[in-house]
């Protein structure tokens, strides 16, 4: 697990919440929970290229925040944070794909989140998913009516 400083961890938490805030109806949580911070930390341990992305992002966004307010990121409102991230990502196009990979691979396995989309929070194996075999005769009738269509040699 990557060893973030407490400042980094606090900023990462609020950055995640800026990227994915809670849904307006309250059904979906924001991405700033401890589990997602842990997911980011453990993933960048395994994928050093993403560590670079995260470290560069935290540093660059923090710097840009201080240009708005000398106290920095913590002092910004939610709208200001969004604006700072938009400015930063517009100038650093490589940041979002890597960072969002980290966010989405953690967020969309969160049991609270996947339940909202009708999923049980479990791996696909060994239970799988039930599917019924279809009655194909009626559906295929137009195709059968066309008759042989492969080319003779």
């Amino acid at each position, binding site marked *: 697990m990557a060893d973030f400083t407490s400042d980094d961890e606090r900023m990462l938490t609020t950055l995640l919440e800026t*990227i994915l805030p809670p849904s307006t109806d309250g059904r979906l949580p924001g991405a700033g929970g401890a589990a997602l911070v842990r997911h980011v930390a453990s993933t960048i341990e395994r994928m050093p290229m993403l560590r670079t992305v995260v470290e560069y992002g935290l540093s660059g966004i923090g710097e840009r925040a201080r240009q708005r307010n000398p106290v920095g990121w913590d002092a910004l409102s939610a709208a200001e944070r969004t604006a700072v991230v938009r400015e930063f990502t517009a100038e650093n196009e490589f940041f979002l794909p890597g960072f969002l990979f980290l966010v989405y*691979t953690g967020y969309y396995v969160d049991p609270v989140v996947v339940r909202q989309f009708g999923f049980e929070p479990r791996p*696909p194996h060994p239970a799988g998913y039930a599917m019924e075999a279809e009655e194909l005769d009626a559906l295929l009738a*137009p195709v059968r009516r066309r008759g042989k269509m492969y080319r003779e040699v």
Partner: protein
Amino acid sequence: MSEPTADVLIIGAGASGAALAWSLADTRMHIVCLEQGDWVDPAAMPGMSVGWEARQATDWNFSPNVRNRREDYPVNDQASPIAVSNFNAVGGSTILYAAHFPRFHPSDFRVRTLDGVADDWPIDYARLEPWYDVNARMMGVAGLAGDPAYPPKELPLPPVPLGKLGTTLAQGFNRLGWHWWPSDSAIATREHEGRAPCINAGTCLVGCAQGAKASTDITYWPVAIRGGVQLVTRCRVREITVGDDGMANGVVYYDADGVERRWKAEVVVVACNGVGTPRLLLNSRSKHFPDGLANRSGLVGKNLMFHPYAMVTGVFDEPLEGYKGPTGCCIMSQEFYDTDVRRGFVRGYSFEIVRSFPPVYAALWGMTTGRLPWGADHHRAYAELFDRTAGMVAITEDLPDPANSVTLDPDLVDTNGIPAPRINYTLSENSSRMLAHAVARGREVLEAAGARETIVDSPMRVAGWHLMGTARMGTDPRTSVVNPWGRCHDVRNLFIVDGSIFVTAAAVNPTNTIQALALHIADTMKRNLANLFDAD
């Protein structure tokens, strides 16, 4: 320590090596297979954990350059719009493939005669038909008899379920009056030869922990090993050696500890597919073969064929339950399979319907296509995408072109220091026109099925699954590398049994044909054991 000796030494334990080993086992010869990868433990497959989708992007990626495992060799595919996909393990790329399992058509073996392009094969559909049947039983192929796009064939298992997604798309094809049919799939839709039935987990492309998908580690290999074949894993062959008589006499390889070793053999069989095989032959230089083994024609590595893919994804208003079911197997359309010169290209393509994205991939796809914002609007946009997409790929017939090639990279090497392959490939004008046609027709059918929006990815970059043509088959040693039963013209105890011996690519997934060819070659070898090395 004396050097071990085999009667037949097979290099590669994937689709073709496994089928050939199984077939030759009944000769009771001493058959050895060297495989650079290892057995895959189903319990360690990504589908057993909730984070499985992320692993598809990392250590279970299609690309060896991304996976970067010890057993993978790097591929320089920067000079190609299509990146090579493979997997190195017992089972080879069948571990990761979708198991879409169509046959070639009779016309696919006669493209010169019928359409005046490329070359005819020196064998025909009738020659392979009995081996397709054997392979259907051994791999356990599911499908429905009566497809008007094919000569009659019987398959041992009922077709995979279409689900709501497949049914919706089938109705779209019907509205246009176009052909479609349930896919031939190497997936056990009910218990088959000890394999458990498919549970529709949707994880086919990261390995099937259920064992329902037919990878050769669970189909051919257990039977071949019971028949006496010796399979040795984590052994990477560096070169095939030749004696003073110009015949192959064994291999030099690196074992699991990286120690260089030699294994002698009376017959050597190469089964490393369309990139691995030419790489090995080109790395096997000697005074007899200064340009690479069996390469007096200069055609080893030439005529690389992929299947250029276009993907068209439709976004629907209703949930399609598309995360359920075999990922790549649902229905196939061959409405545009055969040549119609009015379309502006020769030959044709198949459509294959694929399932929709599970939760993480839905988000990643939404990000890469620019349809999923971050911030406050994310949740609304995601809800409009997740489980509301249906994908279809067009798999187009690539024609052979000597300029499309596999060579050795001057700098890149694998973990044993063996030169890595380099791909030089340009999409042809014919393929580009075919892709454009397929994209337009794909949009039509998705809209006919009710899609409110379509998104195109063409040509797909990470789609170099099918690797063919780089040691082509023929009767003339000047224009081909192997004869009609896989024996190298230049080295009569060296055989090639994988996709590299294809003369043309057809417009369907090649694994079934690769294995039928391997079975045909093994059968011919067995019938000619007494005079295996004689002149044709």
